[in-house]
C-alpha cells in the first residue's frame, strides 16, 4: 500500500495471498479458512465456530454491502440509439423511392430480411444465451480482480471485526464477532490485515450449518495450508493490485470521525426496520423527496415516515424516544437499508444513531450478545464517505496534544489493543480530554477505530508504515488548514470577533449562543448557536449565516459555529486552570 501524504492521497493497495480462502465440508465437519494478506502484519486465529449460522448471515450481509452500488447512473441506450440511426437511414432511403413498384419491392425484401433475421436469431438462441453467460462470468472475474472487495479484518483480544466499503463507497459495514462465538481457540495473533474474499467463497459460505462442526481459520496460508503464520518462502497463490480512488482511506477515517461524535441514539425492534424495508422493496417512486423521516416525540414510540407517500410506520413500544426535545430528522439514501435484509430476521435489536437531517446515520444490528453488524450510511448515496463534502472531523473536538503525548497514547493503545478513555488516562497520567483528542487524532490517522457498541477506542492500524506522531500531527494540522472553515474560525478567535452571549450547562454538555462577525460579509454580525457534548463534540448547531441557512450541517459546520466552540473551549480551559 502506498501512502503519499499525510492526509490520504492513497494510490494503490497491494494484496498478496499465499493461499486462497475457501470452505470445505466433509462427513466429519466443515472448515472455513480465510487467507490473509501476507504483505501485512502476521495476523491469525483458529477456533471452532459455535454458531455458524450467525457467522454465515453476518458474512452474507457484509458481502451484500460490499457488492452494493446504489449510485444512479444514466442508462447507456446503445441499442436504442442504433435503432434510431437505422430508422433515420431507412427514412432517407425511402425518401427517394417515389415509384410504387420500387416501394413494394423494397417492402417485400424488407419482410424477407426480417424473416431471415428472425430465423437467425432463433438459430443462435443457445449460442446467444451461452455467450451471455460467459460475458457475465468474465465480467465477474474481471471486476473481482480490480474491485475493492477484500475486507479489512482486525483480530482484537476479545473479538474479531470485518470492515468493508460498498462499491459506491457510500456504505460502510462492520461485522463484529466476539470470542464467545468460538470454542477451542488455539492460535491467535492480534493485528489488522485483509482477507481474500471472492464471490465464489460467498457462495460456499451459504453451506455453513450448525449441525456440522465448523473450524474457523484465519491465516496466511488460507485453504491450502494448515499453517497460519506466513511462510515467506511459500509460492504466492494470488496477487492483485487495486488502484484506489484518492481519499478512499479518508472514507474509513470519516466513518470513525462520525462515530466518535455525540449521536442521537434510537432503539428499534427488528420488526420496525423490517416493515420499512418491506415497504421499500414493494414500492418505488420517481418523485421527490425520497427521504425517510424520523418523527421523535419525547416518551412516545418513534414514527418513521416515508416520503413522498408520507406513509407512517409507528414503531413498537420498545422503540420509545427517550430524548427531551421533539424533533424531526430526515435522512436520504434509504434504499441502502436493503443490505440489512439478511440480518434483520435474525437480529435481536437494532440501534440507529443519527446526526441530523441530511447527515449520515449508523445502524447497529445486535446479533445476540456477542456479535453485531454495523452499517454506516453517508448523508445520501451520491454524497459518499470518500468524496462527499461533509467533513465530520470538524464536528469533533481537538484539544492540543503534543507529539510525545500522542505517541504515548498510541503505544499504550497498541499494547492494550482495547481500552476505555478513562483507563488510558489513568495509565498514562493524562487528562481524559487529552486522551480523547489523541484517540481522535489516531482514528484520523488510521491507527485506531471507535467501537460504537462499547464506546471504546480500539487499536486498528490500517497501514504497514510505522507510526510517526509528528507526521500525524502535521497531517491533522494540514487537514485543518485545508479546511477554510477551521482556519477562519481560528482567525475569528484570534481577532476576538466572537463573543459568547449565553452558556448554560445542559444534560450532557453545554448549550451556547454567541455573536460573531460574518466572514462572508453579507451581514455585519451573525448569531451562532451550539449544543456541545461533554467532550465538546458538536451535537447540534445552527447559525444565521447564509451557509448554515442553506445547508444546515450537511456540509459541515460554519466558521462561526467553530469559533463559538473555540471560545467555549477557552472558557473550559481557564475554568480548569
Amino acid at each position, binding site marked *: 500500500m502506498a501512502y503519499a501524504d499525510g492526509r490520504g492521497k492513497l494510490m494503490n493497495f497491494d494484496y498478496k495471498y499465499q493461499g486462497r480462502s475457501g470452505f470445505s465440508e466433509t462427513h466429519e465437519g466443515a472448515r472455513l479458512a480465510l487467507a490473509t494478506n501476507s504483505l501485512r502484519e502476521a495476523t491469525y486465529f483458529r477456533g471452532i465456530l459455535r454458531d455458524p*449460522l450467525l457467522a454465515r448471515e453476518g458474512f452474507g450481509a457484509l458481502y451484500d454491502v460490499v457488492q452494493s452500488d446504489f449510485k444512479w447512473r444514466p442508462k447507456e441506450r446503445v441499442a436504442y440509439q442504433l435503432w434510431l440511426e437505422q430508422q433515420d437511414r431507412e427514412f432517407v432511403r425511402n425518401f427517394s423511392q417515389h415509384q410504387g413498384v420500387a416501394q413494394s419491392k423494397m417492402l417485400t425484401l424488407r419482410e424477407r430480411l426480417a424473416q431471415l433475421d428472425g430465423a437467425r436469431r432463433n438459430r443462435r438462441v443457445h449460442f446467444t444465451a451461452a455467450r451471455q453467460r460467459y460475458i457475465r462470468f468474465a465480467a465477474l472475474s474481471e471486476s473481482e480482480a480490480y474491485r475493492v472487495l477484500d475486507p479489512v479484518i482486525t483480530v482484537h483480544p476479545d473479538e474479531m471485526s470485518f470492515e468493508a466499503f460498498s462499491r459506491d463507497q457510500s456504505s460502510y459495514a462492520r461485522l463484529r464477532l466476539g470470542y464467545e462465538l468460538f470454542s477451542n481457540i488455539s492460535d491467535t495473533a492480534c493485528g489488522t490485515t485483509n482477507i481474500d474474499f471472492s464471490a465464489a467463497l460467498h457462495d460456499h459460505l*451459504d*453451506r455453513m*450449518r450448525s*449441525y456440522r462442526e465448523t473450524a474457523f481459520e484465519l491465516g496466511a496460508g488460507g485453504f491450502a495450508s494448515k499453517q497460519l503464520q506466513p511462510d515467506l518462502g511459500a509460492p504466492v497463490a494470488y496477487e492483485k493490485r487495486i488502484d484506489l480512488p484518492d481519499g478512499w482511506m479518508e472514507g474509513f477515517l470519516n466513518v470513525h470521525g462520525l462515530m466518535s461524535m455525540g449521536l442521537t441514539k434510537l432503539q428499534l425492534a427488528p*420488526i420496525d426496520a*423490517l416493515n420499512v424495508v*418491506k415497504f421499500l422493496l414493494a414500492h418505488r417512486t420517481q418523485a421527490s423527496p425520497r427521504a425517510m423521516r424520523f418523527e421523535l416525540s419525547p416518551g412516545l414510540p418513534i414514527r418513521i415516515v416515508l416520503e413522498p407517500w408520507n406513509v407512517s410506520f409507528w414503531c*413498537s*413500544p420498545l422503540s420509545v424516544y427517550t430524548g427531551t426535545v421533539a424533533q424531526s430528522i430526515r435522512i436520504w439514501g434509504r434504499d441502502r437499508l436493503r443490505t440489512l435484509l439478511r440480518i434483520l430476521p435474525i437480529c435481536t435489536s437494532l440501534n440507529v444513531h443519527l446526526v441530523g437531517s441530511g447527515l449520515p446515520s449508523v445502524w447497529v444490528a445486535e446479533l445476540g450478545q456477542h456479535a453485531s453488524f454495523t452499517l454506516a450510511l453517508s448523508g445520501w448515496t451520491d454524497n459518499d464517505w470518500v468524496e462527499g463534502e461533509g467533513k465530520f472531523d470538524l464536528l469533533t473536538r481537538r484539544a492540543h496534544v503534543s507529539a510525545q503525548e500522542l505517541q504515548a497514547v498510541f503505544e499504550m493503545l497498541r499494547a492494550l489493543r482495547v481500552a476505555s478513555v478513562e483507563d488510558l488516562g489513568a495509565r498514562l497520567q493524562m487528562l481524559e480530554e487529552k486522551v480523547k483528542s489523541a484517540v481522535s487524532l489516531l482514528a484520523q490517522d488510521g491507527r485506531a477505530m471507535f467501537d460504537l457498541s462499547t464506546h471504546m477506542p480500539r487499536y486498528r492500524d490500517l497501514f504497514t508504515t510505522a507510526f510517526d506522531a509528528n507526521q500525524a500531527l502535521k497531517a491533522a494540522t494540514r487537514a485543518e488548514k485545508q479546511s477554510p472553515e477551521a482556519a477562519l474560525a481560528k482567525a475569528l478567535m484570534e481577532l476576538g470577533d466572537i463573543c459568547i452571549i449565553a452558556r448554560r450547562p445542559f444534560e450532557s454538555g453545554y448549550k451556547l449562543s454567541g455573536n460573531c462577525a460574518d466572514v462572508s460579509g453579507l451581514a455585519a454580525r451573525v448569531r451562532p448557536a451550539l449544543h456541545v457534548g461533554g467532550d465538546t463534540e458538536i451535537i447540534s448547531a445552527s447559525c444565521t449565516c447564509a451557509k448554515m441557512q442553506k445547508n444546515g450541517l450537511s456540509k459541515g459546520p460554519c466558521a462561526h459555529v467553530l469559533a463559538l466552540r473555540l471560545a467555549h473551549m477557552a472558557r473550559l480551559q481557564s475554568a480548569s486552570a
Partner: protein
Amino acid sequence: MTAMIVRFFSMTQSPACVMLSLEPAPQAGHDAYYVREASGLVPNKLTAGTVYGPFAKTEAVSALEQLQQGYLARGYLERKRRDYLQALLQTDRKARARAAIQVGWRKPAGAVAALLKAAAEATTEISSVIDALARAAKQDAGVADARVIAVASEQAQKKLLSRRRSGVEALRALSDASGIATAFESGLARLNSEVALLLSQMSHSDLNNLPLLKSKLQTLSAPELGLTLDQLYEFDTPLTMAAVREMVFENALKPGRFRYTKSIFKRALLRNDAWMLAKLARLFELTRPPAMSTSIKSGLDGQARQSSIYSQRTRAWLIRASARHLRRLGNFDSNQSRRTGDTANNFLACATALLAELKRDAKFGAQIFDSAVAAHGLLYPASQLRTGKRRLGGYVLAKAAIVHSARVPFASIWQQHPDAWVGLLAVCEFPALCEGIEFDLRTQPELIRKINDQTLTLLYDVASVRELAGIETTRRFNPAQPDLALCGALLDGNPFAQSVAVALLRDSSSAWAQNPNAIQDLLTRAGTDAQQKAANAVIAALNNQSQTARAPVLLKMLVALPFEDLEAHAGRLAVITHFATDYPQALSVEHLLAMLDLPQAAPQTAAVAILASMPEGANHIGVERCLRLADSSIAGVRRFALVLIESSLHTIAQEPYGLLRLADGRFPDARDGAFKLIQRIDFAQFGFDGILNLCDSNQAPVQKFARDWVRLNLARIDAAALLLRLQEHPHRTMQSFAIELLEHHLAPGAPALARVRAFLQACLRRPRMGRADKDRLLQVLRGRGASDAEQGAMAIAVLNDSLRTATRRDREPLLVALSELSLRYPKEPSDWRMQTGAAS
C-alpha cells in the same frame, strides 16, 4: 526506334551547347515523334529549347536533319564520343584517376593494356587504376591475368590501406588463390595477436565459433576494432563476414572507426556486396555529421589536427558514391551480364537491397525517407538527382508521380526481370514504388504470369495484390498433380494464403488422399494454426473416403505418432482423434493416457470417446478419474465420461459420494447426467448424509432434483431429522420445502417445536417468503398451539414477535391465529389484547 540524340558545341557562339533529340510521342500515335531542340551554356544545364512535332517517323528524321544542317552551317561542331584511353595520358593525376574509373566500367578495346601502362606510371591514382584493372581484366580473363595479378599483388603488400584494399580486392575479383592466401597471412600479422591466434585456430566455415570471436573483438579499442573489422571483411570467409555484419554498424561513424567503415563501404562497392552496400548507404543517409570536430593525428606527418572526420562533404560523397555505383551498374555491368549470360545481375541485387532499406523510419516520423537518394537514382530520372547538395525530403517523394516499370531508369532491366520487379513489393515500403508495381500488375496481366512460384508466394504478404496472387496460383495449380509443397508453404503463411491452400487441397484431394507420406508432410507444419488448417483439409479429404480406404493412411500416421511431446504434432493428432473411433483397438492405453494429459480439447475428447467405446474403459483410468473427467471444462469429455461412469455404475454405487459431488457440479449437462445415474442407484445407498449433502446445494436445479427425489423416497428417510437440517438452508425454495416437511413430519410435543422455533420466527419475518408458505406455517402453529398449553405458549410467542408487521396480508391471518390461541390460553402474555364489546 528509340530516342536519338545529337549534340553540338561552339566555342564562339551562344548558346555554347545544343542538343537535338528525336523522342517518341505516344500520345499522338504509335509512329509519331517529337524533335526537341535544347540549348544552354554547359552540356548538363540546357536551359532553353523548343519542341517540334509530332511528326511521322520519316518527317521527324527529315526535320532533325534540317536542324542538324543548320547548326553545322552556323559553325557548330558535333560533339563526338570521348576517348577515355587517351584521357589516361593526361598530366593531371585526378583526371587520370577519373579516366581510369571510366575505362574500368566502359571497358573499351585495349583497356587492360592502357591501364597497365597507366599503373606503371601512376602515383596517388594507383588505387583507382588497380580498381579499374580488376574490372577490365575480369572481362578479358585469360588475356592479361598474369600482368594484372602481378600489379595487384604488389599493391596488396603495401602498408597504405587504400592501396592494399585495391590490391587485395583486385586479386579476389580475379580469383587469384595464391595471392589471396598471401594477403590472408599478411592480414593476420596486422591483427591483434590474440585475435590473430584465435582466427588461425578456428574453422572459418563453422558459424558456431562466432560468439567466441565476437567476445574477443568486443575487448578491442575503437580504432583497433575498426582495423580488425576491415581486415576481417578483407578475409571474406563465412565466419569473418558474419562477425563484420553483426559488429560493423555500432559506433561505425565515430572518429576511431569511421576510416575503416568507409573502407568496408568501398570494398562492398568493389565486390558488389549488395547487403553491406545497402546497409552502409542507408546508415550514411540517416546519420548527420557531428557538429564538433575531433583532434586526430595525421598518418602523413604525425601532426595532430582538428578534423571533422565524418563531415557533411564526406557524407555527400558517400551518398553520391552509392547512387553513382548503381547508375554505372545499370549502364555497364547489367549489359555485360546479359551478354555473358551471367544470371546474377549485380544491378538488380544492389538495387533491390537498397530499395529494401527504404523503410519507414520512426526516428524521422513523417519524413519517412529522409534523403532517399537511392530512390531517386533508381526510380526517377537521373537528371533529378542532386545528391548531397539538396535535401530531398519524404514530402517531395510522397508527392512524386506514380512510378511504373516503363518510366523508371533502367526500365529495360526491370522489364526483363519481372521477378525482381514484382518481388520488390514484398521487401520495399516506398509508396510510389509499391503503387507503381501494383499498377503494373493490374494493367499488365501477363506480368504476374511471368513470375516464378517463389515470387508469387511472396505476394501473399502484400494485402493489395494477394487476391491476384491467389487467382494466379489457382490458375497454375494442377489438381491432378498437386504441388503439395506449394500448398504447405501457403499454409505456413497468412490466413488468406491458408484459405487459398485449403481450397487447392480440397480441389485436389482425390490425388493425395491415398498418399500417407504426402499427408504426413502436409501436416508437418511449424505453427499450430497452420497444423490445424492442414488437419482440417486432411480430415475433409479423408471424410470423403470410405473407412477401409482411409484405414492404411490413419494407421501409418498412428504408428508414427510419438508418446511424448504430442503437442508438437497437433495436426496429426487432430486427424487421428477425429477418426479415433475408426480404430479403437489400435490405440494403446498408454496413448490414450498421454492424450488425456494434453491441454487441447480434441485429443482429450477422442481419448475419452475411445475409452467409452471399450468394454473395460473405465477400469483403465479408475472411477475417481472418470468422475473428475465428468467435471471437465470440455463438453465432449464430460459427455463420454458420463458414459464411462454409467458403465461402472455398480462400482460407483458402493461409494456414491463422488456422484453426488458431480451432481452439484458446475456444468448443467454433467449435472443432468449425474441426476439420471443417481436415480438408478438404490436410495438407501446414499445414506442420510449423502441426501442431505445434495439438499444443501446452493444451485437451484440441484435443489429441485433433491426435493423431487426426497419426495419420491420420503418413506425411506428420517423426514423429521431432514427437516431439522433443512430449516437452516438459506435459500427460499428449500425453506419452503422445510415448511412442507414441517407440516407432516415434525415430531409431536413441545421439544420438537422448540427446535424449529427460530426457523418459524425468521420465516414469518422474512419479506420474501411466499404467501402460501406463511399460511402453511401459521396453520402449523395454530395446530400445534391448540394441542397443548406448552406448545400454545410457544406459538403465541412466535406470533407475537411478528405481530407488528405493517403488511396487511401478513398481519390479518397472524391476528386470526393469535386471537384463536389467545382465547384458548388467555393467560399467555401477548401484545395483542382481546376485548369483548361489553368490556370496551
